[in-house]
């Protein structure tokens, strides 16, 4: 049986995905979102309430309310009106600074295990995943062990895209000729929907993939099976993948063109076509 058959159907609905994180990054982001909103509501709710209460109290029909048409300045209130929002923003700025550094996507995650490297190529309109250490590749689905950091190295051979698995963490751009690193780690097993978040042409909406987190032993089993896949990905077949197509079924490649990822990235760094071999700019492989 083709091991990817089970993945042809999308994972079950995740509901409010952002509030049901299944990874450390998404959990950190969720906590930041909740804290920041509560902090702001602390000021905003009383202000909105005051606006309506004061508007009602000082309605023209209310004879008992004071009327002072020339009252237009009060030093204490002015300082308060600048000070209160400044205070809230100061607290938020601390959150912002710390959040930006703690949850910086290119920062390695704390773990006793070395990260699994997965190279991601955004194509029109499918996702190619390359496992440089395991020497296998997949299309439109990606599998990795739980509780081990994954370093997604993102690039594109297509219009600019944004790689997003909401339940595992936030987005990162995938751009031609460039590599962005995004560290994610699943805290439990499961299947999560991932996809394209940046408009990139006709097949944008259908450009989804399934991200599957499994136990370490299941991952080894899967890898062994993947190595037995009858399909490979030579450069000529890769070029076919770069042609526009939608809803391609998931696929597993037991081998791929040596240096495939670097070759893809370097296409866009080359001088004019035909003026020599492209320079490889990525170290190692």
């Amino acid at each position: 049986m083709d091991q990817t058959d089970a993945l042809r159907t999308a994972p079950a609905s995740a509901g409010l995905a952002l509030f049901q994180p299944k990874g450390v990054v998404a959990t950190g982001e969720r906590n930041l979102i909740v804290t920041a909103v509560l902090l702001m509501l602390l000021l905003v709710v009383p202000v909105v309430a005051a606006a309506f209460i004061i508007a009602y109290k000082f309605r023209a029909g209310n004879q008992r309310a004071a009327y002072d048409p020339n009252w237009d300045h009060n030093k204490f209130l002015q300082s308060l009106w600048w000070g209160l929002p400044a205070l809230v923003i100061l607290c938020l700025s601390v959150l912002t600074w710390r959040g930006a550094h703690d949850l910086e996507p290119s920062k390695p995650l704390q773990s006793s295990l070395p990260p699994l490297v997965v190279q991601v190529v955004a194509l029109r309109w499918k996702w190619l995943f390359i496992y440089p250490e395991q020497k296998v590749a997949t299309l439109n689905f990606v599998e990795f062990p739980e509780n081990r950091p994954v370093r997604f190295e993102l690039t594109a051979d297509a219009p600019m895209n944004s790689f997003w698995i909401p339940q595992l963490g936030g987005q990162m751009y995938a751009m031609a000729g460039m590599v962005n690193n995004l560290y994610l780690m699943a805290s439990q097993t499961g299947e999560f929907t991932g996809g394209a978040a940046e408009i990139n042409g006709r097949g944008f909406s259908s450009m989804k993939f399934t991200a599957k987190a499994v136990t370490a032993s299941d991952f080894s089993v899967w890898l062994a099976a993947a190595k037995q896949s009858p399909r490979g990905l030579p450069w000529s077949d890769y070029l076919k993948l770069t042609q526009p197509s939608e809803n391609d079924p998931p696929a597993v490649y037991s081998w791929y063109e040596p240096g495939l990822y670097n070759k893809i990235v370097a296409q866009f760094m080359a001088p004019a076509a035909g003026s020599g071999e492209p320079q490889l700019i990525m170290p190692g492989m």
Partner: protein
Amino acid sequence: MWHFIFGNLTWAALPHEWFTIGGTAAMFLMAGAVVGWLTYARRWRWLWSEWLTSTDPKKIGVMYIIMASLMLFRGALDAAMIWLQQAMSVGASHGYLSADHFQQIFTAHGDIMVFFVTMGFLAGLLNIILPLQIGARDLAFPFLNSLGFWLYVAGAVFVNLFFVFGGEFAATGWLSLPPLSELAYSPGVGMDYWIWSLQISGLGSLIAGINFIVTILKMRAPGMTLMKMPMFVWSSLCSMVLVVSVFPILAVTIGLLWLDRFFGMHFFTSTGGGNPMMYVNLIWMWGHPEVYILVIPSFGIFSEVVSTFSQKKLFGYASQVAAAIGITLLAMLVWLHHFFTMGAGADVNAFFGIMTGVIAIPTGVQIFDWISTMYKGKIIFTQSLYWFLGFVATFTFGGVAGVLMSSPAADFQFHNSLFLVAHFHTMVIGGALFGIFSGLTYWFPKVTGFKLNERLGKTAFWFWLTGFFTAFVPLYILGFMGATRRLDHYTDPAWQPFFITAGIGLVIIAIGAAVQIAQLIVSIRQRRDNLDISGDPWNGRTLEWSTKSPPPFYNFAVIPEVKSRDAFWEMKQGGRPQPVYQDIELPKNTAMGIYVSAFVFLAGFGFVWHIIWLIVLGLGGAVTCVIIRALDEETEYTVTAAELASMENNHS
């Protein structure tokens, strides 16, 4: 030979999709009806000499508002089509639109609502109210004002042109980021229509911005120092400073994109040494200030409305001025928050995130100051004030969503999601548009001489407000569910009820808009009951209320002397001096604005379809017309003191 005359425009390029044919038919029917009426009523000469060639800012303002209303209709139709597709297209169903059509529609929707609806309404209000508020008879450059308006019209026609002349519109999102918008991925003419509609209308905005700044700085009534200007004038000044600062960036950015597309250059391509990230930075250096350009004047409107209807001085005037200037400066320092996900790193992201949060401080100050203005006032709940309260209810929570996204780590989850879409609709509808509605109802009697029906206005308000929440709260929730924007199809059936609810909200808003049209019709029919004879229907505070409603074509027979901030309020406390009339000079009508825009339009059409002779003709014609106009030394006429006195006495 064919290619020489028609460029890339062939039979095959003519409209052939059902919705473009429908649009074409509808546009020809409407145009036919208008032409028929004008001919039947023998109104052509009247239209030409009283309106189209006018340099009177009050008339140009009215034309802006009419044009913006028409474009609002088009933009709303787009919104309805977007919603219908999203409500239907789940799982096995793929809705009624192809992905390509759907993408063209939301691209047009965004560009139309920003460039041709909101900007149009703003330019209209500024034209009508600014000169009156500063005690001027005209703008600094009347011809440029007419030209700016007609360039705006030319841009608006361009956005709709593919209905008639074929091809397609851009399917790349409202900012058309490369490399998607480059030839390699978008070879069609849709992108070129996009470039030239923005380029031409952007030129009009830039010209208008320069004109308004010079008018505010040089043409204020004697005694009106900067710190005595009404808040609407201050906020307009801030907004126009942003226009002049950033619209050149837009022009250059899409100009470079055009060079890529027309001459095969490599500014923003993936290959050949181009860099798409540069475009993303540049377009947002314009794009973020642009949203403040839209919303700052609304803050000014609210300052006027709240103060007038609280029958009280504006609280913290100096503080509000400082806040407006602060927002203006900060607006230019936050563009990167639109793409934290590009990978600039934690330090850069954190800097732009914090700068974005800081903008909330002056914005909060303004809200506090409006509340303090209401405090110890005598508040009259007119429809204009309703729009202000609606603004408080929507904008503050939209602001919370915005500040939330200014934190990069949170933004990674919200970027390009429907949460973001809900946020900026809250800001543009709840902020800019509610402000515009507030201003339109507030100043309507000044323009027409009669008030708008209050009861229908308030009914419309309630429909708008409930419709707004029904339409956009589901989008916030869909964002939490991980739904990205711009989806023509999705697989998760749990999303569908939210899309349908959003659509119901859209219907409620549409009812609100229909009530507004009914309000206009009823108000015109019952105008005799709501006449504004005094010129001061609201017991106003600023100079525009000191002249008649509608104002005479010369605005003020005698330019008022200003002694304090609430100039007219003070005048009403004392007595008004006996007027001493003097000869005044006013600008003549000119058709050159129309001619220049027509030539620019032809050049743009030539650029889209690669018709070289038309480009030469259009650019040559436009330059020639400008030179002819520049050499014309008789652009003004005189109204003598005697004529002025007789007109003033006849009126009163």
